[in-house]
């Protein structure tokens, strides 16, 4: 009886694992099956072409969307990462315990707020501000970058803070004993040692920015064209799917799946880089 139970439990775990792994495989395979044919049909150069007009002109070029994703994400990283790292240094090294105890749950809460809320805030607050003071329609790369910068802050702050806090105490004590000031210690001892953790935090933050959909739909304007300045409207890969999926059929729908494949690949690359960076440390 006991042996039977033992065997059964092993089987059950295996069955559960097997089905969830096949479920995950199903998604991947499904998206590949749906998206690859259209790439084959129109060819890679056409797929990475400049014009996206799937219904009216039968053109499926996603290059402008790649540029859109990269520009918005880069902008978000440029704004969000320095602020995030400064915040984490403050929390890990300077903040008194009381402040830390308020900030930590607050950051946790911010990470959980639905992304549309951030997007909406951008639409009614940031967009008119840009329109007023910088000109242009306001729906722009800049607006998207600001919103995404705010959204990746919790990720960047919490992971870099953990990696700063997990450094051995002796590092800091040694540096201070050598007569370094607190800031010198942070700059030349703590930050370099926590580098891999911080880099991983940044990459994960970037991953979040790349994957965001609803918030950026609201503030980017979604024009599928190459931008000429930060004030121009762009469309990202995710918004391309989000905005057109509801109506798409046939080749158009497959092209959106193909967009999904490109997103998949980008995330895979980011993820492997993050893992590589963290593993190098050990």
């Amino acid at each position, binding site marked *: 009886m006991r042996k039977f139970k033992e065997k059964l439990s092993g089987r059950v775990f295996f069955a559960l694992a097997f089905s969830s792994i096949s479920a995950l495989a199903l998604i991947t395979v499904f998206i590949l099956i749906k998206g690859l044919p259209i790439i084959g049909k129109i060819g890679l150069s056409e797929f990475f072409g400049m014009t996206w*007009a799937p*219904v*009216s002109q039968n053109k499926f070029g996603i290059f402008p969307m790649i540029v859109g994703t990269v520009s918005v994400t880069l902008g978000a990283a440029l704004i969000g990462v320095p602020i995030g790292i400064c915040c984490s240094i403050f929390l890990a090294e300077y903040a008194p315990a009381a402040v830390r105890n308020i900030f930590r749950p607050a950051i946790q809460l911010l990470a959980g707020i639905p992304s549309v809320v951030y997007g909406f805030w951008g639409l009614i607050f940031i967009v008119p501000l840009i329109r007023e003071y910088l000109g242009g*329609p306001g*729906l722009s790369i800049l607006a998207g970058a600001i919103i995404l910068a705010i959204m990746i802050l919790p990720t960047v702050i919490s992971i870099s803070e953990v990696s700063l806090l997990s450094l051995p105490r002796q590092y800091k004590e040694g540096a201070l004993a050598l007569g370094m000031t607190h800031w010198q210690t942070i700059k030349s001892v703590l930050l370099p040692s926590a580098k891999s953790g911080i880099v991983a935090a940044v990459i994960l933050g970037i991953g979040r920015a790349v994957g965001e959909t609803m918030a950026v739909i609201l503030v980017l304007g*979604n024009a*599928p*064209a190459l931008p000429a300045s930060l004030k121009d409207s762009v469309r990202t890969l995710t918004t391309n799917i989000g905005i057109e999926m*509801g109506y798409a*059929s046939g080749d158009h729908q497959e092209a959106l799946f193909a967009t999904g494949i490109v997103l998949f690949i980008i995330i895979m690359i980011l993820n492997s880089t993050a893992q590589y960076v963290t593993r190098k440390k050990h």
Partner: protein
Amino acid sequence: MRNSECGIKRNYKNMRSVIVILCVISVCLLSGCSRPQANVIVLGSTSVEPYAGKLAEIYAHIHPDREIDVQGGGSGVGIAAVESGIADIGMSSRALKEEEKEFIGWEKEIAKDGLAIIVHPDNPVSDLTLEEIRGIYTMEVTNWSQLPGGDDAPIHIITREEGSGTRSAFEELVMGKGVWITQKAMVQSSNGAVRQIVSGDKNAIGFISLGLVEIGEKPVKALALNGVAATRENIENGSYELSRPFLFVALTEPDGPAKQFVEYVLSPEGQQILIAEGFIRGADAAP
């Protein structure tokens, strides 16, 4: 050691009750799994959806035993859903294409909708020709000062996404064959979103359902076309050129509850509700 064991045991008990509760809940959910028979699914154009939804809401008050399920998705999706049997009735906000007519055996025009070209109320421009609108959407005209009475300000063009029924109606009625809307135009995925952006940006131009011009928190201004105002009367008498049909489609003539819902929509009572929303009586409406 003893203490921790105790804690573990208690936790385990807690967990067991959690599992039991989860099981009960899932059984309850599964038991709801039989699809109710009286459910009519109406699916398609997001332009028609809010009004079909409103009609269904009122219809449900009259016949509380029927559930009419109205969902968006777009004209193309609605027609595909009818073809694959997911929906009983499809909604389309454009005339059917030739290839669609091959399998759609039944269609009724429940209403006509005007296409309004809208700008911010503070924009001094209030009358354009079709050529001028086309010029804006191809970016031959990029500044409001190039238009009669316009300020010196860049034009911010807003359009709908590829695949939208409103967009294809606009392309058909304004752009014409082989002339494309510029890729630089900003894209919003619903009438409401276009309206929302235009109502907040003095230099923006967009196009939406005529019925939605008056609906929203902040006002927008519908442009006149060759001096003809975008009003219901002008669409009915044919002088305002931009209009499109709202269709209910199905493979064959619906029967049962679906048929009764269609009859309600085409009845004077149902038509009155659509007219109150700013639409024009459908060609297939009951006399």
